[in-house]
């Protein structure tokens, strides 16, 4: 790294949110390995030992796992602890990533997920000894139905993308039952990439619909697009611009009058929970991202869960089995679902994630509305304090997220990626760059309700400072970040000659 300290390159008073701290270098665990070390010892065997080659036969036995590390417990602790110090995390500060809803992951959720009697349960256990698990699933189902204003629910999908596929398959089966599954799904050009990818797996062709000049669904022309070949429209509401589709009732009506259905991508539910319910405004089926709205931890990329809720007419098509309560009050799985779309995942879903989402919902109760209000308050506060310096491509009311563009800063040769990287030097994770696709140079910001006024102010100050730097000292922004362990990494070399594993 550059021999000058960061402070001489950038005057100290401009960096108010971040200072460097020492973090140890660390090799790969394989490079710490030496024969004979071990990190875990096993209780002794209480039955006669067997020799693998004898038991399995030479053709099926293995005598070694070459390259597997041999390290001690302390080395494992140090290795992964050091690695962890190279990460940013919600526990450290804001992730203003649009449509990711990076909110606080409550610690009690981790505690309850690990309880003996919950973490230990096998999904094939008889219902008689699984009443606790089944009730957790059932209680969560009831909460999600109430929050979304729907009548049928599945907790099986493992993530939002799987939820999308599930919803589309249900739509397909419903339409098939009526004689014609139809051929196309309409998808706005502002949609998340999983939407078209999921539609293809469901056997549909995609028709992209251009957003209008307000960045919203082109409702005026929607009638032309909804032909007899169209099975559904996949809509994110609020949109990926953070704006509510005000003509939603009209949109739903147009689809329904032509026998098509309205699917809602629930990624932006953080703007609606407790305030409005998709089931009330015409949505037929939707998915939720529990790792967004419902606080389950991202863990570096997953796990998630993507439950699907729907109107009653779609209930027969839910993935099997469903969870229900019998007349005697006990809970059970119903495998007898002849019209079901089948299974989308083994077992009943990401139970540990579902459990955490229920714990989150119980913590708030009806007060979940306050979280939604604070999320929208934070986004608007940030917007108001930055709209004099950053271009707002669509001047429409923002809900829980705001999308700026880099148009003004581009005049000085500074783009959204540069600004995002410079935010790192101020102690923040970048916002979402390069999405939605309909905004060139997008800066998509979603603070969530977990940010205090102080944190929002720090964020605002950071971006205001960077806007000033873009004019007076663009180089420092274009070559950011300056304060991380590694500088910008060579992604081109990584893609040309991929090295995807360690070799001795």
């Amino acid at each position, binding site marked *: 790294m550059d021999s000058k300290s960061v402070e001489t390159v950038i005057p100290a008073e401009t960096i108010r949110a971040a200072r460097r701290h020492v973090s140890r270098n660390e090799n790969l665990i394989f490079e710490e390995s030496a024969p004979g070390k071990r990190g875990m010892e096993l209780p002794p065997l209480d039955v006669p030992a067997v020799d693998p080659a004898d038991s399995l036969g030479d053709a099926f036995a293995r005598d070694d796992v070459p390259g597997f590390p041999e390290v001690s417990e302390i080395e494992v602790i140090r290795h992964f602890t050091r690695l962890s110090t190279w990460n940013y995390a919600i526990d450290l500060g804001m992730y203003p990533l649009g449509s990711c809803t990076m909110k606080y992951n409550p610690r009690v959720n981790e505690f309850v997920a690990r309880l003996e009697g919950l973490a230990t349960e096998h999904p094939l256990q008889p219902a008689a000894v699984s009443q606790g698990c089944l009730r957790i699933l059932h209680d969560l189902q009831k909460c999600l139905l109430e929050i979304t204003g729907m009548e049928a629910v599945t907790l099986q999908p493992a993530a939002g993308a799987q939820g999308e596929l599930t919803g589309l398959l249900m739509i397909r089966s419903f339409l098939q039952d009526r004689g014609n599954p139809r051929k196309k799904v309409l998808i706005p050009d502002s949609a998340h990439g999983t939407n078209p990818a999921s539609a293809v797996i469901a056997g549909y062709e995609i028709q992209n619909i251009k957003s209008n000049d307000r960045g919203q669904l082109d409702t005026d022309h929607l009638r032309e697009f909804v032909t007899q070949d169209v099975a559904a429209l996949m809509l994110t509401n609020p949109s990926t611009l953070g704006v509510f589709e005000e003509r939603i009732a009209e949109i739903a009506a147009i689809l329904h009058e032509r026998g098509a259905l309205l699917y809602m991508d629930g990624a932006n539910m953080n703007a609606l929970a407790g305030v409005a319910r998709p089931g009330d405004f015409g949505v037929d089926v939707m998915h939720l991202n529990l790792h967004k709205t419902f606080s389950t931890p991202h863990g570096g990329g997953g796990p998630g869960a993507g439950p699907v809720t729907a109107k009653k007419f779609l209930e027969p098509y839910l993935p099997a089995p469903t969870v229900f309560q019998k007349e005697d009050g006990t809970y059970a799985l119903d495998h007898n679902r002849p019209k079901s779309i089948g299974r989308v995942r083994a077992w009943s879903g990401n139970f540990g994630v579902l459990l955490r989402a229920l714990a989150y919902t119980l913590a708030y109760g009806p007060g979940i509305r306050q979280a939604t209000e604070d999320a929208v308050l934070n986004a608007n506060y940030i917007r108001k304090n930055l709209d004099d310096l950053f271009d707002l491509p669509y001047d429409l009311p923002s809900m829980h997220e705001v999308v700026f563009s880099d148009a003004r800063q581009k005049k000085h040769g500074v783009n959204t990626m540069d600004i995002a990287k410079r935010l790192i030097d101020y102690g923040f994770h970048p916002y979402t760059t*390069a999405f939605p696709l309909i905004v060139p140079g997008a800066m998509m910001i979603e603070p969530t309700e977990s940010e205090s006024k102080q944190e929002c102010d720090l964020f605002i100050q950071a971006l205001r400072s960077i806007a000033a730097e873009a004019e007076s000292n663009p180089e420092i922004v274009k070559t950011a970040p300056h304060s991380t362990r590694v500088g910008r990494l060579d992604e081109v070399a990584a*893609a*040309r000659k991929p090295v995807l594993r360690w070799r001795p």
Partner: protein
Amino acid sequence: MYPADYRYSKDHEWIKAEGSTATLGITDYAQEQLGDVVFVELPKVGAAVKAGAVFGTVESVKAVSEIFSPVTGEVAETNPLLSATPEKINQDPHGAAWLVKIRMTDPKEVSGLMDASAYQQYVAAKAKENTA
């Protein structure tokens, strides 16, 4: 910049016809828009190509660009350099980094394409659009 003896398509491919064989590549404008090329996907020798249809892709780290054939015919050769050194497309898009050679079924298709000066103007107009 743009060789006078080549013809150019609206999708930023160049084509050099020699009798009924045509050599095809992407233009300097295309490679600049794409950024550092990391991977090229080309059809097999003998594959049929149709005018206006996609026959391969050129990838950068963050984008995938489809390549459209301006002519109809059969793939006679593919450039052996590009799998090991896709960066040649950035370095020499009009020369060493040709993509395929095509045996054309209808050589007259080439005359419908832009000449060098028309393409130059087309690209200049596009560049203006991008900065507007």
